[in-house]
C-alpha cells in the first residue's frame, strides 16, 4: 500500500537534495535550513507516534528545530535565488524544438490526479489496497508528481540528478516562504491551546448591541473576516466566532437558519483569507513563486474582490438566513 509517509519521505529527500546542492555551492545557511526541514519530514511519523505514546522528547527536539528554522530565516542569511535570463536563447530554442509536447508533463500533474481520483471507488470496490485511506488525495497527488517528473525527464532527456537540481533551484527561489504555511498552522495550534480564540470571541460578543438583527449579522460576518485575517485560516476562526456570536445571537436569539449561517459565515472568513499575509500559502508563496518585488502584490490584486464579495455575503446572509 502507498502510505502518506512515503510522500513525506519523498519531500524529505527533495529537501535533503536542496541542502546538498546548497552546501556544494557554499550557501551554508540555506544548506542548514533545508537539512533541518528534511529531518522534520523524515522524523515526522516517529515524532507523532512517540508523542501519542507519551514520549515528548522527539516532539521537543522538533520544537527546537522549528525555532532554529525561524532564527535562520530571520537572520537574513538565506539568499533568495531568482531565475535569471542568461539561458533565454537555449530556452527559446528548446521551446521551438519540443513544441506543444512541453505541456504534456505539466498537464500530467492535474490529469493523473484526476484519473486516479476517479479510479478510487473502483479500487475500493475490488478491495485493492493501493492508496492510504488517510490523506488519499495527497498520496494520489504524490503519485501524479512522480509520474510527471518521469515524463519531464524522458522529454528533456534529463537525469534524476538534474530533476533534483531543478527542484532545489525552485526551493531556493521560494526560500523561507515555503515554510510559512506550516509555521502559521503551528501558530494556530498554539493560539487554540492558549485560549486566544475564546478571548477574542468574548470581546466581540461584549461589544455588539444584541437586540438588532442587522448588528448581529454584521458582527458575525466581521468577526469571521477579522479573526481569519489574524489567524490566516477561516477554519480556525469558524468554531470560535460561531460559538461566540453565531450560535447564541443569530441562531439562538434571532432564529437564523443554521445551515445558511454556517455556509455563508465560513465564506465571510474566506474573504478575510484573501486579505491577509497570514494566509501564506495563498498570498505569500505565490509572490515568491512568481518572483514579485512587492510582498503584498497578490493581496493588492485581490482586495477589491474580497471587499465587494464580503458585502455580498452580508446581504445574502441577511436575506437567506431569516426566511
Amino acid at each position, binding site marked *: 500500500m502507498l502510505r502518506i509517509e512515503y510522500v513525506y519521505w519523498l519531500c524529505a529527500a527533495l529537501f535533503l537534495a536542496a541542502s546538498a546542492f546548497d552546501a556544494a555551492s557554499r550557501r551554508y545557511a540555506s544548506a542548514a535550513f533545508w537539512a533541518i526541514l528534511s529531518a522534520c519530514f523524515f522524523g515526522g511519523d516517529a515524532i507523532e507516534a512517540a508523542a501519542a505514546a507519551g514520549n515528548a522528547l522527539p516532539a521537543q527536539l522538533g520544537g527546537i528545530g522549528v525555532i532554529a528554522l525561524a532564527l535562520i530565516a530571520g537572520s537574513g542569511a538565506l539568499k533568495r535565488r531568482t531565475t535569471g535570463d542568461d539561458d533565454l536563447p537555449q530556452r527559446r530554442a528548446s521551446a521551438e524544438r519540443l513544441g506543444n509536447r*512541453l505541456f504534456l508533463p505539466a498537464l500530467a500533474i492535474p490529469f493523473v490526479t484526476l484519473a486516479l481520483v476517479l479510479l478510487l471507488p473502483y479500487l475500493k470496490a475490488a478491495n485493492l489496497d493501493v492508496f492510504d485511506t488517510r490523506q488519499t488525495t495527497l498520496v494520489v497527488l504524490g503519485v501524479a508528481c512522480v509520474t510527471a517528473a518521469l515524463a519531464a525527464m524522458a522529454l528533456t532527456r534529463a537525469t534524476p540528478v538534474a530533476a533534483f537540481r531543478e527542484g532545489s533551484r525552485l526551493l531556493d527561489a521560494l526560500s523561507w516562504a*515555503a515554510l510559512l504555511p506550516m509555521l502559521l498552522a503551528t501558530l494556530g495550534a498554539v493560539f487554540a491551546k492558549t485560549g486566544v480564540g475564546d478571548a477574542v470571541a468574548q470581546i466581540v460578543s461584549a461589544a455588539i448591541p444584541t437586540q438588532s438583527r442587522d448588528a448581529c449579522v454584521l458582527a458575525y460576518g466581521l468577526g469571521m473576516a477579522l479573526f481569519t485575517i489574524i489567524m490566516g485560516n477561516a477554519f480556525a476562526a469558524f468554531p470560535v466566532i460561531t460559538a461566540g456570536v453565531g450560535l447564541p445571537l443569530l441562531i439562538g436569539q434571532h432564529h437564523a437558519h443554521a445551515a445558511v449561517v*454556517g455556509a455563508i459565515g465560513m465564506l465571510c472568513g474566506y474573504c478575510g483569507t484573501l486579505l491577509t499575509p497570514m494566509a501564506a500559502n495563498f498570498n505569500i508563496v505565490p509572490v515568491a513563486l512568481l518572483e514579485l518585488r512587492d510582498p503584498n502584490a497578490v493581496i493588492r490584486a485581490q482586495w477589491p474582490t474580497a471587499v465587494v464579495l464580503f458585502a455580498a455575503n452580508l446581504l445574502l446572509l441577511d436575506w437567506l438566513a431569516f426566511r
Partner: protein
Amino acid sequence: MNYWPLLGVAIVVAGFAWRLNPALVVVVAGIASGLLAGLAVPDLLALLGRSFVSNRTLLVIVLTLPTIGLLERAGLRERAQAWILGLRRLTFARLLIAYLGLRQIVSMLGLTNVAGHAQTVRPLLAPMAEAAAGKIDPALDDNERERIKAMAAATDNVGLFFGEDVFIAFGGVLLIQAFFSQHAIEMDPRSIAIWALPTAIAAFVIHALRIAWFQRGIAKRMQAGDRARGVVPEHRDESPRVAKDETDAAH
C-alpha cells in the same frame, strides 16, 4: 479569562506592519503566547514540534517543483507565451475568466489539488496572461507585468476558495456540520454546500468584472502612453514586435 495570550496576536500584527521576517515573527508570537498562557517551556517546545510536523501536508506541493523546474529550463514558459500569441481571439480577460470558471467548477467536484500556484500559475497561467496582455500593449513595463502576474495568482485563489465550499465532502463543509452537531443541531452536508452556491456565483461575477476592468485599464494606459509618445493608435496592430511573435507562433 486570561487575556495576556492576545499579546501574541499583537506581535504578529506589529511584526507584519514593520516588515520583519514573517517566519521569525510567527514563531516569536507563538512562543510569547504560550509563555503568557503559563505553558512550561518543555510543554511549549513539544506543542511547537508536534503541531509543526502534523501540518506536513501543507508542503507536499513541493513535489511538483522538479517537474516544473525541468520544463522551465526546456522552455515551457516561452512555449506557453507563443501558444497564446498564436490564438488571436484569446484575450487577457477571456483567458483569466475561463481559468476562473474552470477552477471553480473543478474545485466544486472536490479536485482542489489539480491546479495551484506551483502546478499551474507559475508555469502556465502567469506567462500566458503576460503574453495575452502583451497583445494589447507590447510595451508593458515591469510594474504592469508584476500586476498582471499577481492578478493571475489572485484569480487562482478566488476560483479555489469559492468553488471548494460547494463540494459536500470538503473539509470546510464537514467542519461546519461537525461543529453544529456538537451543539445539538443536526444537518445534512448537502444543505450546507447548497448555501455556498449563491456566494460562488457572486464571486465569479465580481471577479470576472474586475478582470474585464483590468484589461480596459491596460488598454487605456497604452493609449495614454502612445499619445505621450506621439504614436497614432490605428497603426498599432502592425507594430513589428507582435507581427514577429505571431510568425514564431505559427511553427
